């Protein structure tokens, strides 16, 4: 019998660039332990586990098997779900289906990455097709830069427009003690002056590499309300991993996978006008220009209007639709966890546990994941059972 599902607790590590004090398993354990504490549960209460990361960052084959001491999977069902940058949301969605199927009541979703353990770009380059793309492909940064160059050409957006997004993310991060960039505020000029990595992306336009883990506990409607006063109900989950070849993605048009996934999710959850219907959004924005272009795909504004929407302050705390109160991907990026953190932070907002980064009166929250071949995952969470 299909069940409705809610998030009842979350946990995350204090994200840093190098966690030399823990190995991967130990780092996972920190996040799991915090999620169990947040939910008032012990590992014995967990019925199944889903875990994800991007293999080549730590070069561990069969991570689900390797992780069990840290993830709590000894003598439990555990499986690995991985889809590149979207891993965190794919893991969340898998945990959701574990519970929605009626087979498991309480499921632990774990995302993690120890980016310090490898040459991050060298590892990402292996996501490209070895025959056609790997020769020229240079990792996430230039790939994203190509989208930025096409967007600027089409709409006249400027590096300063993008810098406002970077500034917002970093400013929000100052309210989030878990964020990698907590305690490191910047100015707009800092962004514009930072070193150019791959035109037009500068150092402060792009996400950092982080060591960190996140854990989220999903529970069925039979137990969720007994475990927490305000569960964050999953109202929709949609995925479009639309393309297989980088060259099929037309950088001159909007982010198609996000358009398609959000349209389906909005339909399922009854969202008519995202800016009005959502109280907060945790969006997977790996670089500043995404903050201009991808909100158009989500229907926050028309194509080309992203820069003005940002400059008008609608996405700041106190604005019409605060985006990334946590500081977002540009403030913390432990790949396997990054998309899961969007879901966790959206749940934190709905559950009212956001402390300094809490948006007041959150009824519904939007969370997105991005990665792979310009793929998108969308989840909608809310105070009401669907």
């Amino acid at each position: 019998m299909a069940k409705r599902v809610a998030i009842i607790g979350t946990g995350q590590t204090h994200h840093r660039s190098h966690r030399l004090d823990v190995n991967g398993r130990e780092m996972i354990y920190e996040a799991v332990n915090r999620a169990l504490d947040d939910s008032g549960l012990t590992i014995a209460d967990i019925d199944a586990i889903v875990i994800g990361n991007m293999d080549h960052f730590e070069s561990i084959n069969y991570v689900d098997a390797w992780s069990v001491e840290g993830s709590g999977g000894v003598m439990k069902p555990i499986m690995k779900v991985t889809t590149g940058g979207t891993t965190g949301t794919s893991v969340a969605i898998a945990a959701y289906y574990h519970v929605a199927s009626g087979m498991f009541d309480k499921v632990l979703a774990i995302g993690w990455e120890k980016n310090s353990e490898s040459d991050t770009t060298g590892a990402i380059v292996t996501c490209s097709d070895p025959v056609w793309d790997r020769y020229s492909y240079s990792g996430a940064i230039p790939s994203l830069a190509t989208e930025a160059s096409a967007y600027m050409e089409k709409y006249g957006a400027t590096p300063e427009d993008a810098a406002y997004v970077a500034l917002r993310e970093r400013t929000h991060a100052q309210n989030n003690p878990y964020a990698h960039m907590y305690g490191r505020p910047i100015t707009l000029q800092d962004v514009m002056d930072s070193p150019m990595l791959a035109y037009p992306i500068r150092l402060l336009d792009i996400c950092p590499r982080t060591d960190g883990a996140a854990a989220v506990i999903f529970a069925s409607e039979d137990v969720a309300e007994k475990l927490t006063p305000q569960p964050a109900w999953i109202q929709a989950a949609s995925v479009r991993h639309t393309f297989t070849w980088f060259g099929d993605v037309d950088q001159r048009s909007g982010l198609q996978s996000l358009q398609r996934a959000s349209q389906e999710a909005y339909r399922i959850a009854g969202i008519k006008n995202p800016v009005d219907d959502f109280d907060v959004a945790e969006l997977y924005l790996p670089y500043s220009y995404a903050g201009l272009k991808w909100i158009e795909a989500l229907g926050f504004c028309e194509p080309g209007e992203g820069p003005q929407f940002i400059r008008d302050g609608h996405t700041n705390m106190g604005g019409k639709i605060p985006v990334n109160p946590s500081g977002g991907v540009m403030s913390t990026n432990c790949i396997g966890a990054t998309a899961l953190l969007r879901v966790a932070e959206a749940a934190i907002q709905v559950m009212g546990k956001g402390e300094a980064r809490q948006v007041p009166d959150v009824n519904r929250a939007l969370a997105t994941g991005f990665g792979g071949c310009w793929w998108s995952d969308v989840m909608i969470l809310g105070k009401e059972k669907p």
Partner: protein
Amino acid sequence: MEDIAIVGVAQTKYEARKYKETYYDMIYEVTKAALKDSGLSLEDIDNVITVSNDFFDGRTISSMAIGEAAGAHDKNISTVEGDGSFGAFYGAMRVLAGYRSTLVVAHGKGSEGDPRFITNAMFDPVYQRPLGIEAISAAALQANTYMTRYGISERQLAQISVKNLGNAKYNPNAHLAMDITVEDVINSPKVATPLKELDCSPVSDGAAAIIIANAEIAQKAKQPPIWIKAITHCSEAYFLGDRDLAVPKALQDAAQRAYKMAGIQDPRQEIDLVELYDAFSYMEPLWLEGMGFCAPGEGVKLTEQGVTALGGELPVNPSGGVLSSHAILVAGLARIIEATLQLRGQAGKRQVKSARTALAHGINGACGQSHCVWILGGA
């Protein structure tokens, strides 16, 4: 558990090297073939689960290579990195949760990378990897533990290779099929004692697909639905030294829960055939013990007494098992497919008579750290 069924299946031929085909080609072929088998169209497929391994493919985000070939351009999709039986588990959960159907695809090419390097990467980089351990040497440790614990000889285990490689002659998709004797196994080259070449599965190239559907879509499909009566999985500890390699605890747990889910009280009587993951000859009797078909240490007796032969009381691996075809992650999915063909009565020369209930099994992680158990039933 609600009524969900397997309504379409497809496998490529398993072979040493599919030189002409890319992963994309193989997945397209099995997707098309599974759709044809089921009589359904792509519109009837609500979502897709892919199964692949980044190390074997030499590509992080290995799922990227094949989404489109599985018809997933505008569909919900996800990827399990682990044995195909676990991917199919996720696919089944998605149907239980409300999708009308899930297409599950898996691919593996042992030929394109170095399996020893790749399976060495399964082991802990700090404590185990530099010692050179990989899948075969780890299995040898488990074989050693098992044989010593119960006084089992190499000759006794060789019988499993003889049975399974012989059964493979009746499986048109099998990679290896041969008429051999116990002597042939004993005299085959030593790989890692006590394992010899003929105690070990080959590494194959191949792909497979299944379509899992709810009752509504099962009605529409043209094959008799094979109902999923139980699905379970369980993992034990990771470090080999933290486990008792002669006692498959995780399998015991998964099997007992599966029997309960399926309402099976006497597995030996109520199950008509077993397709289990025999990557090595010793694994068949060890897993049979874990599944509760006999007492610990008695697994080989089932082979000696002819119980597990093709014409026996409880045929095990009538398809030839993993010992005959091992396209890595595909192998667990292939067990589910073979069990399905048996229950449909479509297993040709390897058909088990009056097969009504089957157990299919997959493993993940070194030495069967994690086990997935499926119980399937015909009408």
